[in-house]
C-alpha cells in the first residue's frame, strides 16, 4: 500500500516540477521582453567638444535622454576630486538630474538649485543643501583631446569614479 502511494506521489511531484520549470522559463523570457531594445543600448553615445566652453557658464547637452551638465570651472570655484582635468582646465561633468527625486536643477549664478524640494549643488556638483543624498551622478565618458564621448567608460572616468567612492 505505502509503495503504491509513494510512486503516485513521486510521479505527481516530478510532473509538477517539470511544469514549474516550463513556467519559470516563460517568465524569464517575458522579463527579457521588457529589457531596453538593442537600438536603445547602442544609441547611447554622444560626443561633446569642451574646448569652446566659457568658464563659469555651464552648458547642458542630452545623452540617453538625460541632461548632462558640462561646466568649465573658474578659479573661484575651487578644486574637487571629481574634476575632469584637461590641460590646465578643470571641468565638472555631471548628469543633470537631482539625486533626490530626479528633477532638473537650474543654474543660478554659481550653483545648481532644484525647484522641486530646494536641493542645491555647488559648481563641483556636490550636494550642499536640502534633501539630495549624494552629489550629481557621473556619466561614463572617454576623453579625446579636448572632447569627450559620453557612454563609454574611459580611464579618466574610472579614476574619478573611484575617487568619488572614497
Amino acid at each position, binding site marked *: 500500500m505505502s509503495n503504491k502511494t509513494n510512486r503516485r506521489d513521486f510521479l505527481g511531484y516530478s510532473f509538477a516540477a517539470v511544469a514549474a520549470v516550463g513556467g519559470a522559463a516563460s517568465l524569464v523570457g517575458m*522579463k527579457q521582453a521588457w529589457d531596453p531594445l538593442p537600438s536603445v543600448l547602442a544609441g547611447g553615445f554622444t560626443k561633446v567638444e569642451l574646448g569652446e566652453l566659457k568658464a563659469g557658464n555651464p552648458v547642458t547637452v542630452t545623452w540617453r*535622454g*538625460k541632461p548632462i551638465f558640462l561646466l568649465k570651472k573658474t578659479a573661484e570655484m575651487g578644486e574637487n576630486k571629481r574634476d575632469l582635468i584637461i590641460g590646465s582646465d578643470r571641468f565638472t561633468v555631471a548628469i543633470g538630474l537631482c539625486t533626490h*527625486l*530626479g528633477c532638473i536643477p537650474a543654474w543660478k549664478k554659481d550653483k545648481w538649485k532644484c*525647484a522641486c524640494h530646494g536641493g542645491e549643488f555647488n559648481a563641483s556638483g556636490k550636494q550642499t543643501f*536640502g*534633501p539630495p*543624498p549624494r552629489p550629481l551622478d557621473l556619466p561614463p565618458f572617454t576623453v579625446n583631446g579636448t572632447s569627450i564621448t559620453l557612454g563609454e567608460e574611459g580611464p579618466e572616468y574610472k579614476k574619478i569614479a573611484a575617487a568619488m567612492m572614497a
Partner: protein
Amino acid sequence: MAKFEKANSVGEWLDQRLNTTGLNKVLMTEYWIPKDINFLWAMGVLLATTFGILLISGIFLMMYYKPDINLAFDSVNYTIMQEVAYGWLFRHMHGVAASVVFLIIYIHMFTGIYYGSYKQGREMIWISGMLLFMTFSAAGFSGYMLPWGQMSYWAAMVITNLFGGVPVIGDALVVWIRGDFNVADATLTRFFMLHVFLLPITIMGIIGVHFYTLRIPHVNNQTSEEFDFDEEAEKYLAGNKKESKVIPFWPVFISKDLAVLGVFLIFYFYLVFFHYNFAMDPVNFDPADNMVTPAHIYPEWYFLWSYEVLRGFFFDIAGFSAFDIGLIAFAFANGIFLVLPWLDRDPKILPAHKRPLFFIWFWVLMADLIVLTVYGKLPPTGTNAWVGFFAATAFIVIFLVLPIITKIDAKRRGDA
C-alpha cells in the same frame, strides 16, 4: 443530460438551462442585507458605476488615442478634445471620474474602518478591498502618463526613480521598468498596455472576489449588531417586512443605492462640465519636455498623503539617509492598511462611537491624512517641511499605537 420539456416562454426556456430564477434569488431578491444602514452603504454601487463610466469612456478614448510619444499629446488635446464628436465629453468624464473615484474609495474605506467592517470574519472583504485600492492606484498612475504632458512625464520620472532605492538591483530595476535609461516611448507603450488591459481585467477579477467575500460574513450594519440572517430572512419572506432586520438586495437595497447615485451624478457631472481643473491639472496641458522640469510637480490629490510621507523625512537620522527612511515609511504607509484587522486587538465589532479611544484614534487619523494631503501639495520649504515631518511621523505612530488602544478599550468594557 437533464430531462428537458417544452418551455412555455423565453424566461422558462432560459430557466431550464441556466437556472435563472435560482440565480436571481441568490444574487438579487433573496440576497439579504441589513436594514439598519445609512447612505454610506451606497458607496459600493457608486464605485461600480464610476468604474463603469471609466471603462466605457476609456473605450471611446482608445479609439483615437495614439500611444506614441510624438503623437499622444495631440491625439488627446487636438483629435479627441476638438475633433471627435463628444470627444471632449468622454475625456472630461474619464479624467474627472478617475479623480472622483478615489474620493468615493476613501469614503468607502473610512466607513469600513469606522464601523469595524474589517473585523472578525470580514478580513477578506477588507483585504480584497485594499487590493482594489492598490490596483486602482496603479491604474490612475499609468493613466495619467498617457496624455504625455509635463506632469505625465515628470510624475513617471519621479516614481520610477523610487525603485532605484531597492538595494543591489535598484538601478537595473529602474531601467527595466522604463525599458530605456530614461522615461521614453517604451515606457509609454507598456504603461498603456497596463492601463487599458492588464489593470482593468485584474480589477474586474478582484471586484468579483470582493463581491464573493461579502456573502458568508454578510454586509455590516450601523450598530455592528450580529444577528441570524436566516431567521430574519424567514420573517421577511413570511410577509413580516417591518419586523425583519433584513432587506433584499433587489429591489429594496438597490433602490436606496440608486437614489444616492442620482445625487452623486449631479455632483459628478457638474464637475465634468464646469469645474475640472482639480482633476485635469493645467500643467499637463504643456507637452512633455524631458529637458525642462516644471516649477511645481505634484501627484494627483489622492496620492498626496502618501507622497508627503515619502518626502516628509528630509534629514538623515541615526545613520540612515533621508531618502531611505522616506522610502521605508512610504512602503509602510501603503501596506499598513492591509493588516488593519490584526492591529485591532478588540474582540468585539462595534461602531467607533461605541469605542471611546478608537473614536479619538479615528478622527486623529482623518486629521493627519488631511494635513498630509494638503502639505503634500505645498512647496516643501521652511515650516511646510517641518509640518510634513511631524505629520508623517504621526502617521506611523498612529498605526503602532492601534493595538494598544484597542486593547484598552476592550479591557475597560470588560471584553478583554
